[in-house]
């Protein structure tokens, strides 16, 4: 019997499902399983799930496609999908109020970022520090000191959230413990300011992009440089990993965007088409599309498989300063120096709505995790919340006395932080 099994059922023997986890944004089920004694995870993405989806049919479909989901698990899967549908149905209409003004720094802030649970967040500043804050109390938990110039780019290693990376105009990147505030490593090697960075999804690498025209990958464990991504002829100002972490994308002032293989550090291809500096470049969740924004007033969508441009999104009268996808990748939004933002359908590439009202450039834009709201930060000193389908402005977050440089939703979508040139950070909830 056992011998007979080895051929056909080797899969179920080697891969044993341990438990199922729910992921709300974007909707999905995470499978935790054992393979040759090692604990691994994979996800079933349900990006098109809606409250109206036929659950029994969907479960059947999943069972057919995913060998780890056996008949005995179907009830559990069904239960999880119902929970996801329930969550999708509660598209909350949260009203935000100013909760705290943090006189955070003695000089302007640069960027702000939440950890995954939203329990704490970080702020970077011209005062050369990064500070870690408790979201519920507004208390300062740690000041990360050691950089010799502006702390510009900051990140948590989400979803874990136990580490923080800071990239500075002092040309170094530092890795810190979020728990103790201790510096684990200082990554040296760039010859100009570090202006963007990201952890890979597995939290084994940090990528840094610099004004020296290169990006570098660093090993978190040993603190060593893994590889330098060279090829751009001007400053790199944007970078991001894809969801699986095998590709990284860099956007440059040389008007191009490059896609790199993380394993080898080799360039896979270059996206050429924009006629001015790139302001941002990112993947959608399922890694099928790349979105790029440029000073040439347009955004472009590219097919990840072949690197071909599939659409140019026009309409803005001035430079594109920021872009984003919603968590599922169905919608994308563009923010411009013309003071407006636009929402497009990723499928039809048509403009769905226009966000009008800011009295200055919009420098930051992001969807809430649910995808039904947009948050914009502007030089007009306000942040605004919009309905992402109708374009209606729902709230104006007023109070900052200078430009807003950065803003973010927490994962639940019920807390907002804004960082300003006025040296303060504000918590809204």
């Amino acid at each position, binding site marked *: 019997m056992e011998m007979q099994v080895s051929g056909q059922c080797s899969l179920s023997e080697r891969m044993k499902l341990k438990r199922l986890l729910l992921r709300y944004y974007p909707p999905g089920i995470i499978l935790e399983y054992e393979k040759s004694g090692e604990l691994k995870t994979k996800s079933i993405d349900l990006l098109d799930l809606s409250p109206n989806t036929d659950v029994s049919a969907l479960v059947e479909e999943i069972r057919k496609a995913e060998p780890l989901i056996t008949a005995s698990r179907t009830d559990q899967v069904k239960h999880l999908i119902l929970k996801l549908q329930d969550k999708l149905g509660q598209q909350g209409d949260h009203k935000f109020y100013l909760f705290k003004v943090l006189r955070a720094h003695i*000089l302007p802030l640069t960027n702000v970022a939440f950890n995954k649970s939203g329990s704490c967040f970080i702020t970077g500043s011209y*005062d050369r520090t990064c500070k870690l804050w408790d979201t519920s109390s507004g208390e300062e938990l740690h000041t990360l000191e050691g950089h010799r110039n502006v702390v510009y780019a900051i990140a948590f290693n989400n979803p874990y959230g136990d580490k923080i990376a800071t990239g500075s*105009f002092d040309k170094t990147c530092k890795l810190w413990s979020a728990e103790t505030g201790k510096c684990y490593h200082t990554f040296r090697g760039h010859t100009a*300011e570090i202006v963007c960075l990201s952890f890979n999804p597995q939290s084994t690498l940090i990528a840094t992009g610099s004004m020296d025209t290169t990006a570098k990958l660093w090993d978190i464990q040993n603190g060593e440089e893994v590889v330098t991504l060279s090829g751009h002829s*001007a400053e790199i100002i944007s970078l991001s990993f894809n969801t699986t972490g095998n590709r990284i994308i860099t956007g440059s002032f040389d008007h191009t965007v490059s896609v790199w293989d993380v394993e080898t550090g080799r360039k896979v291809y270059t996206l050429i088409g924009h006629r001015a500096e790139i302001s941002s470049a990112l993947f959608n969740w399922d890694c099928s599309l790349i979105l790029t924004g440029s000073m040439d007033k347009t955004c472009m969508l590219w097919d990840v498989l072949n690197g071909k441009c599939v659409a140019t999104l026009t309409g803005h009268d001035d430079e594109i*300063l920021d872009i984003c996808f919603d968590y599922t990748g169905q919608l994308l939004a563009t923010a411009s*120096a013309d003071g407006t933002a636009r929402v497009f359908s990723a499928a039809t590439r048509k403009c769905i709505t226009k966000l009008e009202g800011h009295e200055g450039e919009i420098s930051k834009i992001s969807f809430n995790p649910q995808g039904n709201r947009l948050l914009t930060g502007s*030089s007009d000193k306000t942040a605004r919340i919009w309905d992402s389908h109708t374009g209606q402005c729902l709230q104006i977050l007023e109070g900052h006395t*200078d430009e807003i*440089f950065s803003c973010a939703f927490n994962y639940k979508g019920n807390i907002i932080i804004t960082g300003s040139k006025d040296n303060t950070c504000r918590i809204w909830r």
Partner: protein
Amino acid sequence: GAGSEPRTSERCKERFSATPSSPSPGPGGALHAVIREWREGPDAQCGACSPSRAPYPQGLLSILRKLKSAPDQEVRILLLGLDNAGKTTLLKQLASEDISHITPTQGFNIKSVQSQGFKLNVWDIGGQRKIRPYWRNYFENTDVLIYVIDSADRKRFEETGQELAELLDEEKLSGVPVLIFANKQDLLTAAPASEIAEGLNLHTIRDRMWQIQSCSALTAEGVQVR
């Protein structure tokens, strides 16, 4: 425009003869002269500037763009000085903006001013004592240093002289031309530029071009604005 006045070239030479020059502002303007000198050498001709209203800064991205090493026709100017010296007022005058509501700068202000084919990216950095240690954040790629002095604040001449001396010792600013504005000449108690130049021992500066210019950022006297 450039060359319309036959003596302009002569005046430029005079300005950069490494001795304190006449505090009276010429129509060409000291700022422009320093930039021209730095760009094209001592024989360059001065001309009048025509600042135009610059676009409002565009968040962090525009800071990155202004950070990158300046292309040929861009000049990165760093505006420093003690608190209350008048740096922000000067910046706003250069950009032809309203100067009626100016508060102490807690961080920095950036403006781009077009001037005779040059794009001047001017960085005005707050001067309060607690944030002076952060001035060095902004030293990289500086083409011209403008140092502003409140000519009526005699009690702090020593302090401002010390700060200037430290700046001139900074490695990242070595060789960077310095233009000193003896500001607030509209006040009766203002010390003349020549006295300030002497007090600060400007004549001992040998390692760079320098220039002192009396002005009033408030009335725009000595600040070339049209």
